[in-house]
């Protein structure tokens, strides 16, 4: 029963899995990647004291220099008040990785964009193409699909026809039609019959 191309969907699955693994590795690597020198800060929060207003200082200083005396602009504070002012300040050293954030957002938006394009293709473009290629006889739907204006409505017929030819492209199309049928069944269970996940 094992056809030479029977392993194609396994190949597809392992390809997608390796793509996923690649994305994961990329993410973890950029997280541990070389630290951007602009991605560190020493944040000092100083509450108001007497007539000196409160202020927040963000400086690009290394961890050992991250304390009040290095950071606070001493010009604006008078000599005797410096100590009292600095006692109330809290300084924290923080790091972030802007590269990680950039890469993550780009990955997310590209996957979202691809899915949206595919969705537009499936819902709008494909029915128009099919109608043009196969004529109006294609649109005769079986009793079960009356009123089913969802995408993938004609997957049954396409499946029956594509059984005969045996090249790679048709295998891919067959896999796609099977997937569409599965999604259609899921949609019926969830949205129409309300049997699962109500």
């Amino acid at each position, binding site marked *: 029963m094992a056809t030479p191309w029977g392993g194609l969907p396994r190949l597809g*699955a392992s390809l997608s899995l390796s793509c996923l693994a690649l994305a994961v590795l990329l993410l*973890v690597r950029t997280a541990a990647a070389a630290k951007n020198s602009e991605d560190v800060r020493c944040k000092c929060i100083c509450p108001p004291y007497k007539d000196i207003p*409160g202020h*927040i200082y963000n400086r690009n200083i290394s961890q050992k220099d991250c304390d009040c005396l290095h950071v606070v602009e001493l010009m604006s504070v008078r000599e005797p008040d410096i100590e009292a002012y600095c006692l*109330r300040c809290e300084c924290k050293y923080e790091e972030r990785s802007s590269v990680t954030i950039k890469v993550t957002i780009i990955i997310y938006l590209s996957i979202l964009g691809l899915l949206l394009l595919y969705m537009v293709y*499936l819902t709008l473009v494909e029915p128009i193409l099919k109608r043009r290629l196969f004529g109006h006889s294609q649109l005769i739907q079986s009793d079960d699909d009356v009123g089913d204006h969802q995408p993938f409505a004609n997957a049954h017929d396409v499946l029956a026809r594509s059984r005969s030819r045996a090249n790679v492209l048709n295998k891919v199309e067959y896999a796609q039609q*099977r997937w569409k049928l599965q999604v259609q069944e899921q949609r019926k269970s969830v*949205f129409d019959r309300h049997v699962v996940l*109500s």
Partner: protein
Amino acid sequence: FSFYTGAMDSRGFQQGCFNSFQSSSSDEDLVDIPGTAMNFSLRDDVPPLDGEIEEDKSYNGGGIGSSTRMMDFLEEPIPGVGTYDDFNTIDWVREKSRDRDRHREITNKSKESTWALIHSVSDAFSGWLLMLLIGLLSGSLAGLIDISAHWMTDLKEGICTEGLWFNHEHCCWDSDQVTFENKDKCPKWNSWSQLLISTEEGAFAYIVNYFMYVLWALLFAFLAVSLVKVFAPYACGSGIPEIKTILSGFIIRGYLGKWTLIIKTITLVLAVSSGLSLGKEGPLVHVACCCGNILCHCFNKYRKNEAKRREVLSAAAAAGVSVAFGAPIGGVLFSLEEVSYYFPLKTLWRSFFAALVAAFTLRSINPFGNSRLVLFYVEFHTPWHLFELVPFILLGIFGGLWGALFIRTNIAWCRKRKTTQLGKYPVIEVLVVTAITAILAFPNEYTRMSTSELISELFNDCGLLDSSKLCDYENHFNSSKGGDLPDRPAGAGVYSAMWQLALALIMKIVITIFTFGMKVPSGLFIPSMAVGAIAGRLLGVGMEQMAYYHHDWAIFSSWCSQGADCITPGLYAMVGAAACLGGVTRMTVSLVVIMFELTGGLEYIVPLMAAAMTSKWVADALGREGIYDAHIRLNGYPFLEAKEEFAHKTLAMDVMKPRRNDPLLTVLTQDSMTVEDVETVISETTYSGFPVVVSRESQRLVGFVLRRDLIISIENARKKQDGVVSTSIIYFTEHSPPMPPYTPPTLKLRNILDLSPFTVTDLTPMEIVVDIFRKLGLRQCLVTHNGRLLGIITKKDVLKHIAQMANQDPDSILFN
């Protein structure tokens, strides 16, 4: 029996069923197209049996309790035997014994050659490797979700002109122009009004911001629900009720597949960013279980065995909660208490490992900076006083009341969605709810911010360094400490914050009822914690002001000294959050552990436990089940509750089928039925299995055979075996019965027969029967009387009986 098979009957399932099993892998059976025989063996979620028959020899049905495996080596096991239909329950006993056989096989072979030894070591190690991979993948996906959700939530308000991918906090991260009073303003971050009409102030700017906020919210919600509808309808909802059912032995094909994973990840970010009152913890558990299921396909040991796979899924659920809260131990306990059905000790250690790896991966991605895992990590350690137990218990009562109210109203609304016209317009429903939420949320600054930020602000203890409205206290003292401040009187900011919080509380209570259960991924933890945190903070500030203005009352003067920090409103918010979450989900230990892992200390364990216990008792007094069990019952899943006692005195013969007026039990005989007889029986009934008896007169039990295995074997025999025709005799015995000459060859089906079915006598109390079903994970149990077969009890019958005894509707149990 199988509701699904019954529904498919009208589609010609009976004619088509023999053809449809040709390719023998059960994902195709989900789509039973009459008349089209599948030539390609495509699998999505199912043991690939094609081409690996040689390894399969000892793993398959021949290993069920029989000592004649040597003989079965010569018979090729047929692919497809031993797998399950969609929406059916697995046979735990068979799966576990199959795994034991496989393990014994490997251990015996390992003594033969070095290669076999390496194989046995790698087999033992594969479980740990799988846990490592699950942890890595879940952690990375959680990092992706967190970073993207943060960015997209802030996208509703504005954009960072220097680095479009930064959210508000990170845009102003290294800015010098941040002021103490206004920690959020910096020139690089531009709100929409600033971008569109280049002004920040004024009524028109406010309207532009309002309009853009609502527009973005609607756009995100629309994208989310369309993606779910077009690509993966199983990705909606929380996922935890279905995962609970799957872990108890139910099969829902495609629920943990790769499309569901991708869509759930993407749409979860969209749904959270649209400002809807939902959280991402429940869906993160679903995402982690999908990762677990997908990674199982890389390992033979877990791909072929449904029981072992469920162990992996338990561990994956623990990893999911661990990344959601940054609480590995809490995650394991959540998996143990809420999600899993069977939790052997081996799974405990492996779940912990997976949870730790996931938490560590998330930490190294560092989504929030500062190596924190969760947004609302609490850092104060001020002590609490004994008299404060009274308000904590009050918060517990509030949590319990809210939990019971929420469950009742949410289930009523979901039932309405299930049965009336409301369910026909999911997209419009999502859009309307989003529009209402966005329009009501924008004016109030506490509902405009994302719920996690709200909770983090409420958990925060006010010090000198805070300048938000909630921390606008009047400082009448001369102290240089920045940390522990004495109780201070509230300024005007605090009073206005209280009003706004009260309105936010009412809005959140009402809107969450309609949001949970919509056709987008929606979680429940964060909204419940928000409701509890708001209530707790209100009470805490009230207590604080009372302690300040009436410090001469007996309670306060004995416990609080003047000028010391007595009441911490942040603690009240935390306790309130725990109480509400416990009231809704009825979690006990896992809730307390998650909360104390969030705070990083054991100081607050007693208040948390007091509130959690009180809320659970109050909620249990008002309604029996938690939200997840209520949804399981609403959907009619065959979930046998493991925590409740069966306290009625009925007997097995009151529950068994056939009942008094029904036709007799459909049985097969061990060596006197022809292929045609068996096919007639199969096509005329919809039972999922048949007992095999010695003869119809004696009704002495031989074993039990499953419908699916019968269909596959007969089809296979008709195609492959020489001479098998409709008049061939089928026999289940060891040797063929003596046949007269010139009869067609016989068909031996002993290898699909379960020779050790479980039986009880008809006078066995139902308490024991229910206990057997629970502990062993049975699907059906045969009933005998004086040694002769009398009837059968299935899991569905047990569930219906329990529902009847509890005065619930027994027809709501849909599946087998």
